[in-house]
């Protein structure tokens, strides 16, 4: 190998301090994610600078002038399809020819590839596609609109898909806001925390003795509620679902609803970045449903450009 490196093994690079600076740069980037963008910029510069210096150091032996190559002592071997006994090289203007062995090789591999694809792709499709197809739920009848007292949250539990059993039990916090331009207005908040999906609890007093159960739907009215809180990591929301404290990245998701024959029906869930105003006058900034922890607005939303169909 390189004679001036002495008896050092060619695979062990020389000691170098640049990785320390590189690591400090990476750590600065992570700290900057919490502290602020200027620290991210400093970290990125340090990482790039020390990374380049490190690569330059490590690659120095490979960029050195190559040693004199050994003189070739014998004629190189020729492949089987050239030379005297093989097929003749094409002349001027003739098509390129391949020996039969090459044709057989390519056609075997090609046919084998097609067969492999025909067998594998449907299996892969079965593994990956069913979770994305027919994922919605039917509308849920949660009770007569008279069961929801005005300006009080009612803890409503129901089965999202009754055929799946108890695992599909969900909870919504529903408040009757009175009338908005003559039509009943409701606020139907999903209890799934938008940090990581834990069940959000109401910061109020559930009146369990006034619980009503009808057709598998439980309705528990509450005394005055001061927002919601998540027991897992301490996220706090106000009574419109806006995030007021903790790690959640946006406001609580909401259910679409409609009134039919005096009964409240819950529809699809959608995501909310924030709510201006309260109750019937609320202006809801709505987005297609996103999973917990996924931003729907702001610069971090570029990380989640596409959502699967739900």
């Amino acid at each position, binding site marked *: 190998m390189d004679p001036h490196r002495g008896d050092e*093994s060619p*695979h*062990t690079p020389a000691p170098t301090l640049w990785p320390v600076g590189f690591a400090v740069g990476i750590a600065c980037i992570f700290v900057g994610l919490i502290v602020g963008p200027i620290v991210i910029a400093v970290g990125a510069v340090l990482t790039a600078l020390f990374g380049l210096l490190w690569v330059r150091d490590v690659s120095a032996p490979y960029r050195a002038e190559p040693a004199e190559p050994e003189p070739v002592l014998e004629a190189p071997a020729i492949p089987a399809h050239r030379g005297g006994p093989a097929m003749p090289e094409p002349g001027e203007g003739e098509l390129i020819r391949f020996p039969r062995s090459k044709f057989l090789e390519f056609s075997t591999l090609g046919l084998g590839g097609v067969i492999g694809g025909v067998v594998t792709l449907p299996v892969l499709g079965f*593994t*990956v596609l*069913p*979770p*994305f197809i027919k*994922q919605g739920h039917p509308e849920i009848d949660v009770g007569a609109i008279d069961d929801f007292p005005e300006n009080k949250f009612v803890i409503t539990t129901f089965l*999202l*898909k009754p055929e*799946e*059993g*108890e*695992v*599909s039990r969900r909870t919504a916090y529903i408040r009757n806001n009175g009338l908005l331009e003559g039509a009943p207005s409701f606020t139907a908040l999903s209890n799934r925390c938008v940090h*990581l*999906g*834990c*069940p959000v609890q109401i910061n109020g007093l559930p009146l369990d003795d006034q619980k009503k159960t009808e057709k598998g739907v439980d309705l528990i009215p509450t005394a005055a509620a001061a927002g919601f809180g998540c027991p*897992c990591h301490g996220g706090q929301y106000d009574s419109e679902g806006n995030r007021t404290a903790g790690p959640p990245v946006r406001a609580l998701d909401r259910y679409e609803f409609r009134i039919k024959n005096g009964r409240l029906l819950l529809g699809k869930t959608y995501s909310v970045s924030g709510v201006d105003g309260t109750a019937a006058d609320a202006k809801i900034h709505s987005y297609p449903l*996103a*999973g*917990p*922890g*996924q931003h729907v607005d702001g610069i971090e939303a570029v*990380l*989640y*450009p*596409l*959502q*699967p169909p*739900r």
Partner: protein
Amino acid sequence: MMLYPLDWLEERSGLVGAVKYFLFRKVPGDISWGHTLGSAALTAFIVQAVTGVILAFYYKPDPNSAYESIRHITDDLTLGWLVRGMHKWGASVFIILMFLHMGRVFLYGAYKYPRELNWIIGVLLLVLGMMEGFFGYLLPWDETSYWATVVGVNLQATGPFVGPFLGPVLQGGAEIGPDTLARFYSLHMLVLPGAIAGLIILHLYLVIRLGVNSPPWSPTAAGKVQPGPPPPPRAGLVEPRPRGARLR
């Protein structure tokens, strides 16, 4: 005379010689007990596999019967509490031993040339072992399992760009449901143990091929101290003791 079956096997397969080669291979004289951590992790994995197979005789992977089947194993079946407990605590033992083994390899510099590939395989084994624990955690289908899995899957779904699509694939749907339990059971029982076993075989092959090195602070390896004379050859599994000779 009693070793005749082993001679029979050795003549027809060479397996006995292979086992002897593995058990009696040479290692440096100045290594420590820390070098047993890898085998300890392997033992923990074997315990998990065996207790897992036995639990699979009685566990029912259906949402309506999963919890009850585990209660049945723990409370009703003979020594079921022991096998279930071994599996549950063995999972933590496996992960801890892997971390300790990784630390020992790191501190001894045993990840350097020519063992880099072995280190990479070891990291993959660590990641797969943790995934195995994550998938197994849902199987009791109680509140802790369910919510821990909700949080775990949602954590994974916050990954940029592809996270929102990987979430439904893991869950078997837009939400955790009955399909999730079946999916996790298949991954926990079939896919991941197979992958881990395959990588362990590769890992062990490399360990045997590349050998064990002395610690970095070894004076023998640095040439400062001459190693002593090699020990006399040991009587192997199939070498019969010569009549009249004494054991060394």
